[in-house]
């Protein structure tokens, strides 16, 4: 079966999956919590339609791709920022520490992605366009830095006994996988040029489809429940107070017997 036919089939499945996920988010009420993420999925619907309608050899396809790709990149950054805010907004005591963690994670992730962009790839295969080459490089850098940012954010969270909902863990995991495979796919574009662009595009579409399917099946309202609560240091420990009183009583009785 030609790759173009498989690609078309995967694109149709992506459209259906994106629409179903957007519908689920709005119907379940999860969109109120994951606003940016929900509107990202709404935006995916028209963005999944035009590649099916516009021929990929036409200049319209090229310019639509160049215009919509940066919009997606901005959406990715906003979704990760939303995830970060969702996890930490409840914990005011951590404001300073989480700000430090964010600065460190941002600095490290940008540095690593810049280092990853330094090797200049000059593929033997011709590239379709210089503009596309720059766009792929920028997107590759941002996708990789978002993966590193999520990794460092999760590393910071693992140092604290913060109970996370299943949805947040699933969300972070799937997005990390999505960004990582997108960065890898864009690197393959840079290395192999137009010779293997169909295969690379199929790889990217395929992993997108897997991620969309995972979001569709794993994100649901019951996943918002948080597991074991934190221990509380407060006044409600009646057993401890009673035991202390018993100890004091026993000591006083002991003293009074000696007297």
């Amino acid at each position, binding site marked *: 079966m030609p790759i173009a036919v498989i690609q078309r089939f995967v694109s149709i499945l992506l459209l259906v999956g994106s629409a179903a996920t957007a519908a689920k988010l709005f119907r379940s009420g999860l969109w109120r919590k994951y606003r940016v993420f929900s509107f990202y999925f709404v935006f995916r619907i028209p963005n999944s339609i035009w590649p099916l309608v516009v021929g990929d050899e036409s200049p319209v396809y090229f310019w639509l791709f160049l215009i919509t790709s940066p919009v997606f990149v901005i959406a990715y950054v906003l979704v990760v920022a939303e995830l970060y805010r969702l996890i930490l907004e409840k914990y005011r005591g951590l404001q300073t520490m989480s700000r430090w963690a964010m600065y460190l994670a941002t600095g490290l992730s940008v540095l690593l992605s810049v280092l990853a962009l330094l090797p200049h790839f000059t593929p033997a295969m011709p590239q379709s366009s210089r503009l596309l080459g720059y766009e792929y490089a920028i997107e590759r850098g941002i996708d990789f830095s978002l993966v*590193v940012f999520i*990794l460092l954010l*999760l590393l910071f*969270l693992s*140092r604290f006994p913060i109970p996370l909902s299943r949805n947040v863990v699933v969300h972070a995991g799937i997005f990390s996988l999505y960004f*990582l495979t997108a960065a890898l796919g864009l690197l393959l574009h840079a290395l192999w040029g137009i010779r293997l662009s169909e295969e690379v595009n199929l790889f990217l579409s395929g992993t997108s489809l897997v991620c969309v399917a995972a979001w569709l099946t794993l994100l649901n309202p019951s996943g918002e429940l948080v597991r074991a609560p934190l221990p509380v240091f407060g006044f409600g*420990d009646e057993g401890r107070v009673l035991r202390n009183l018993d100890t004091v009583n026993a000591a006083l009785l002991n003293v009074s017997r000696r007297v």
Partner: protein
Amino acid sequence: MLDAMGVAILIAAGVAVALGLVIRKVAFSHSRLPVTAEWIGDLSKDRYRPMLRLLDGSDLEFLAEQPGFDRRMAAKLREQRCRIFKGYLQRLEVDFGRATVALKVLMLQSREDRPDLATALLRHQLAFGWGMALARTRLFLYGWGVGSVDVSGLVGVFDQVQSELRGALPLGVAA
């Protein structure tokens, strides 16, 4: 080109494995603190006072002057002391870990930002981590008869943390 792709795939695989491990830790970690706060009252640097002189070498110097005390006996004594010292180090690490987790819980429950606790926690954890690495290295060398181990700094850091914890507890919580 294949080398570049191989390196890229290796890096991606490494990042994926790291992500999987971190996600697993975040998803399945449970707070290991006891439900009550009584254990905070048991935290004390006095428990670790014996560590301060366990490996100071004065006992070995005294025994070396005694008739019949040979190198084999010295090595055996050093080995026993190392084993006891390791036990103390492990206990100290556990107590420090619990104290820092308790501080983190207090930060999580606070209704206001706690930059003071954030600074103290970071400073103490770095100092303790470094001190523990040094202590373990010196303990290893002591086992071979080289040098001694001074943990007064390490116990001092622990003492500061448990003082911070007692100071940060809500009023009325016994400590």
